[in-house]
């Protein structure tokens, strides 16, 4: 006897714990198998681009904090780079190094959150997540020393950063650099030697390189598919051209590769910070830049490699004190483009895992 059933539409989110915020998926299921998906966005849309049109260039920095709130530093960096390009500002040397250090610390924090929640999605409830959060906490402490905030930093300014790092920041950072590799070894062991994790991630949610490129996917998701493309290398900004680091890539483009690329990137970030600490010159942390900028009419696009992918700001100036148009090219939003191809044919439990492996942040998706 065979059972006949009708396809059923199921809503996942916007209040589902595995959707990492307020993301909603309308999924057409045939039994347990995904037939079609339709993502529904906008639950966290705050109109950041419109708000930016009514604020002075420096004031917009606080809005960028609220995009990808797990790595606000890279958002700050992308925005100030765009303003510098638009207004022709040469930032201070020391400021650029501080930006790189802050951005790489942010990358580690964001990848820790991504890995922790990914393990949570796999069913490893709370324990691995808390391990990851324990280390992230130390990064937040370092950030607090830099700028007094733990989530919404607003640390960077056109021309550098708003204040130099305090004296006690450097020993704390050195201690963190000394202890972090050991912790990453532990995490790697947990990820690569656990049979349940391997069985549920290897070969699951494969994204071929051609599809990834055609869908404008960026960041660890693109690199896991075997494409060596990292903005820090192909179009260096700040001082990345003076620092040595490798770009880890995957071979299969499955969930496992995406997870491992993030893990190896954390090691490379530590390498970058170590070199930056050695090279950082004395001097002012910020070039002399007026608070009210009036860039000449024109447009500029600047991008950074944020933990999620290519984060870009396209600014248009009409000569006034506020941007005429401020477009945010957010990696989380665009990385969701191949979602249908990724999910079709997988089961509900795999859907959660595949979705988790893309690592999105709703603050950035909806803006």
């Amino acid at each position, binding site marked *: 006897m065979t059972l006949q059933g009708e396809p059923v539409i199921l809503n996942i989110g916007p209040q589902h714990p595995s959707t990492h915020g307020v993301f909603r998926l309308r999924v057409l299921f045939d039994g347990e198998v995904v037939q079609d998906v339709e993502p529904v*966005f*906008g639950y966290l*849309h705050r*109109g950041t*681009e*419109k708000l930016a049109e009514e604020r002075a260039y420096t004031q917009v920095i606080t809005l960028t904090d609220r995009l990808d709130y797990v790595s606000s530093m890279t958002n700050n960096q992308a925005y100030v780079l765009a303003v510098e390009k638009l207004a022709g500002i040469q930032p201070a040397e020391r400021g650029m190094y501080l930006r790189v250090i802050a951005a790489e610390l942010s990358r580690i924090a964001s990848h820790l959150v991504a890995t922790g929640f990914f393990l949570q999605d796999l069913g490893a409830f709370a324990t691995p997540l808390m391990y990851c959060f324990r280390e992230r906490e130390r990064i937040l402490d370092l950030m607090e020393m830099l700028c007094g905030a733990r989530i919404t930093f607003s640390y960077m300014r056109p021309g550098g950063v708003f204040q130099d790092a305090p004296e006690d920041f450097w020993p704390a950072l050195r201690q963190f650099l000394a202890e972090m590799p050991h912790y990453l070894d532990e995490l790697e062991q947990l990820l690569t030697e656990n049979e349940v994790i391997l069985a549920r991630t290897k070969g699951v949610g494969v994204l071929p390189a051609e*599809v990834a*490129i*055609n*869908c*404008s*996917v960026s960041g660890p998701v693109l690199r896991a598919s075997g*494409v060596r*493309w990292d903005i820090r290398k*192909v*179009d*260096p900004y700040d001082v990345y051209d003076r620092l040595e680091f490798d770009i880890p890539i995957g071979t299969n483009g499955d969930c496992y590769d995406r997870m491992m690329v993030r893990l190896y990137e954390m090691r490379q970030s530590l390498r970058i910070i170590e070199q930056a600490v050695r090279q950082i010159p004395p001097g002012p942390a910020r070039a002399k830049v007026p608070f009210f900028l009036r860039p000449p009419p024109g*447009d500029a*696009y600047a*991008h950074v490699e944020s933990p999620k992918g*290519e984060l*870009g700001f*396209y600014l*248009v100036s009409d000569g006034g004190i506020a941007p*005429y*148009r401020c*477009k945010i*090219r957010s990696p989380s*939003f*665009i990385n*969701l*483009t*191949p979602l249908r191809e990724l999910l079709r044919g997988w089961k509900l439990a795999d859907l959660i895992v595949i979705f988790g492996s893309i690592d999105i942040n709703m603050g950035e998706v*909806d*803006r």
Partner: protein
Amino acid sequence: MTKPLLASEVAKRVEEGVPGAVEQAQGDHLWVRPERIREVCRFLQSAPGLEFNYLVSITGVDYIEYFEVVYHLVSLRYNHSLVLKTRVYGREEPTLPSVVPVWQGADYQEREVYDLMGVRFEGHPNLKRILTWEGFPGHPLRKDHLGA
């Protein structure tokens, strides 16, 4: 370093492939006629030596007299970039062809431009509002939008 290609050089190539499409070239910015945008994009994607296989972003800008739609393109093979622009006139229903058949990455981005800027993309498989809800009054990123 990603090398911005000289638009006047690219314009010559585009003129060979899609005659009469180019309007203006300046720096690394290339303006083309809106109704030819899909042909131009298809040409840029496949032309040897150009191969812009990666669409970075699509932006709509409201200049009051016209809307400018900006395409940032990159070639992952040659690591060079181009800014492709097109001007669409009319405030009622500005329309231009969709580039989703060329790059699937345009899907959500065109929906976003439609939602926030009110530029329609002909040939888009699913042109619906994306960040605001169905029935939202107007298009919020337009300069004359006053809010509900």
